[in-house]
C-alpha cells in the first residue's frame, strides 16, 4: 500500500538545513490501522504531509498505491490525492458556507461526479458516520465531534486507498475523542480501510493495530517490527 524508503526532509536554508525527518523507511500494508506517536516537533506532521503528497521529501523514494511518486506536476499529484487519499484534520477544515452533505461531497466534484450522484454518496457516508439526520446542518450548527464525523465522511466519500489523520482528536474532549477512535477503528475493521493517524495520546493509540514512534525525525519504535 505505502512504502517509504530513506525519506529525508530538512527545512531552512541550503547552508544551514534543519533536519526534520532523517532516513525514514517504513511500509504500511493494506488494511492496517497505524498510529504515529512522538513528542511535539518530532516530525509526525511532516511525515504525514509527505505521505499525503502535500509536501515533498528532500530525498528518498515513496510508492503509494502502486504509484512511484515523482512530484513532477502539481496537476498530477492533485489527482493522485483525490483518487488515493482522504484527509482528516485536527481542526476539521469544513467550509462554513456549505452544509454537512455538501462538505462531504466536495472531493467528488473534483472528479466530475454529477451533483445528484454526489448527494446520494454523501448521504450514504453521513449514515456511515451516524449523522444522517444532520445532512442539511451547517458546520456552525454542529458540535466538534459531529464536525469531525462529517470530516471523516468527507475523507471516505471518494473511496480512497488510505486515510491520513493528523491529531483528529486534538480538538475534542476525551469522551468524544474515544468515540472518534472507535469510529475510525470500525471503518478499519468493517471496510478494511487503511488508516495512518498521528496522535500523541498513547491511550488512544492502544486501539490501533500498529504504533510507530518518532523522535527527532527518526523512527525509534515500530510495533510491527517488534
Amino acid at each position, binding site marked *: 500500500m505505502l512504502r517509504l524508503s530513506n525519506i529525508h526532509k530538512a527545512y531552512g536554508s541550503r547552508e544551514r538545513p534543519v533536519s526534520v525527518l532523517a532516513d525514514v523507511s517504513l511500509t504500511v500494508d493494506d488494511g492496517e490501522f497505524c498510529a504515529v506517536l512522538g513528542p511535539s516537533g518530532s516530525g509526525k506532521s511532516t511525515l504525514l504531509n509527505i505521505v499525503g503528497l502535500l*509536501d515533498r521529501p528532500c530525498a528518498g523514494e515513496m510508492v503509494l498505491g502502486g504509484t512511484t511518486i515523482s512530484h513532477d506536476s502539481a496537476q*498530477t499529484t*492533485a*489527482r493522485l490525492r483525490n483518487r488515493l487519499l482522504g484527509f482528516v484534520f485536527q481542526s476539521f*477544515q469544513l467550509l462554513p*458556507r456549505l452544509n454537512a452533505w455538501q462538505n462531504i461531497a466536495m472531493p467528488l466534484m473534483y472528479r*466530475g461526479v454529477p451533483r445528484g450522484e454526489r448527494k446520494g454518496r454523501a448521504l450514504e457516508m453521513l449514515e456511515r458516520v451516524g449523522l444522517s439526520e444532520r445532512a442539511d446542518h451547517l458546520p456552525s450548527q454542529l458540535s466538534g465531534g459531529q464536525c469531525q464525523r462529517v470530516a471523516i465522511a468527507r475523507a471516505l466519500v*471518494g473511496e480512497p486507498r488510505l486515510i491520513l489523520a493528523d491529531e483528529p482528536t486534538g480538538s475534542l474532549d476525551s469522551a468524544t475523542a474515544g468515540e472518534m477512535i472507535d469510529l475510525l477503528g470500525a471503518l478499519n475493521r468493517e471496510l478494511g480501510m487503511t488508516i495512518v493517524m498521528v496522535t500523541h495520546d498513547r491511550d488512544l493509540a492502544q486501539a490501533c493495530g500498529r504504533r510507530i514512534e518518532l523522535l527527532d525525525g527518526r523512527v525509534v519504535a515500530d510495533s510491527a517490527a517488534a
Partner: protein
Amino acid sequence: MSARRTLLPDAPLGETFAEAFANLRAQGRRSALALLGILIGTASIIAMLNVGHMAQRESLKLFSDMGVDMLQILAVPTGEAAAGFPREAVERLPQSDPAVAAALPLATGRGPVRSSRKQTDLSIVAMPPGLVRLARLPVAEGRSIAAIDDCGFGAVLGHKAAEQLSAPGAAAGVGSRVLVGDYGFTVIGVFAPVVAETLDPTDYNNAVFVPLSCARRVLPGADPNVAMIRLKPGVDGEPAGQRIIAALARPGSSLQAMNAQRILQTMNAQKAVHSRMLAAIGAISLLVGGIGVMNVMLMSVMERRREIGLRAAIGATPRDVQALFVIEAAVLTLVGGVVGTLFGLLAGYAIAVSSGWDFGLAVWTLPLGPGVAGLIGLVFGLYPAITASRLDPIEALRAD
C-alpha cells in the same frame, strides 16, 4: 491523462460558476463596490457608442434634403467695393468643370423692406428660377420667379417675411406691394416654411426673393456673390472647390468654398474628439475597475487560504483553483457589465432627449458591454487566481 485533461479544470464548469455566484453573494457589499468601476466604465463606453451612432444619423439628416454633394462658393469683399463673380462664369461651370452637375448664381444681402403698413430689415435674395428646385422651396401661394420675369418687379416672400410685413387688415400676400430699397415690387408668391439646412446661404424663411437680374437695383453689387453647386456623385469636394475658386477669382473678392462633405468631416472630427474623451473615461474606469476587482479577488484569496488549502488537499488541481477565482472575477465584472450597459443606454437616451434627437439603439453595442467587462474580469482575475493556485496547501491549511 491526455493533454486536454491537464489544461482544463477537473470540476465541471457549471458547478464552478454556481460556486462563484454563491461566494460573491456571500461577500455582499464588497463585491458591489468592486462592480462600481466596471459599471461606470461599461456605461460610458456604451453611452459613447450609442450617442455616436445617433449623432451620425442626425448629422446625415442635416443634409438629407440637399444631399452631401453640395458645394457653395461665397464671395467676401476685400475692400470697399462689393464682392462677387461673373454670373456667366457660374452658369458655364457644368460645361467648363467636369465635376459640376449644376450651378446656380445668387446675389444675397440685407436691406430695409417696406409694405403698406410695416417696415423691417430682411434678407434679400436675387435668384434664378432654378433655386426653387435646388433648395426645394415649396410655394404656398401664387407662383415662384420664372425665367421670363427678368426684372419685371415681381417678388416672392419667405414665410416669416410675409408675416413680418403683414399688419391687421393689410396682409402681405399675392398682389400686395412691397418696397425693396427704393424699388417697388408686386408680390407674386409666398413660400411655405422650410427647415433650415447647413448650406443655406441665408435664412429662406426671413427673405424676400427677387429675380437675379434685379440684383443691381436692390443690392450693393450687381454680380452674384454666392454660387450653389451640385457636384457629380462621388466627386471629392475639396479639389473641386479649389478649382472653382480659381476659375471664378476676381480682384476685390475673396472666395471661400464650403462643401457638405467637409462640414460633415468637421462635425465628425468634433464628434471624434468627444468620442475619444468618452472612450478615455471608459477605458480609465474599466482599468480602475479591473484593478479594483483584482484587489478584491486578492483579498478574497488571502481570506480564503484555508479553503484553498483544503480544496488542494481533497484533490482540486491548480487549474481547478484558478478556474474558481477567474470565474468569480468574470462573473463579478459580467454583472457590472450588464448593469453598466443598462445605465449606458439610459444615459444615451437622456442625451438624445436633451439634444432633441430620435433615440436609436446601436444593437451591436448590446453584447459589447458585458463582453468587454467579462474580458476585464478574466484578465484582472488571472493574477489572483494564479496566486491562489500557487499557495502551499500546508501553510494555507494552517492559516487562521
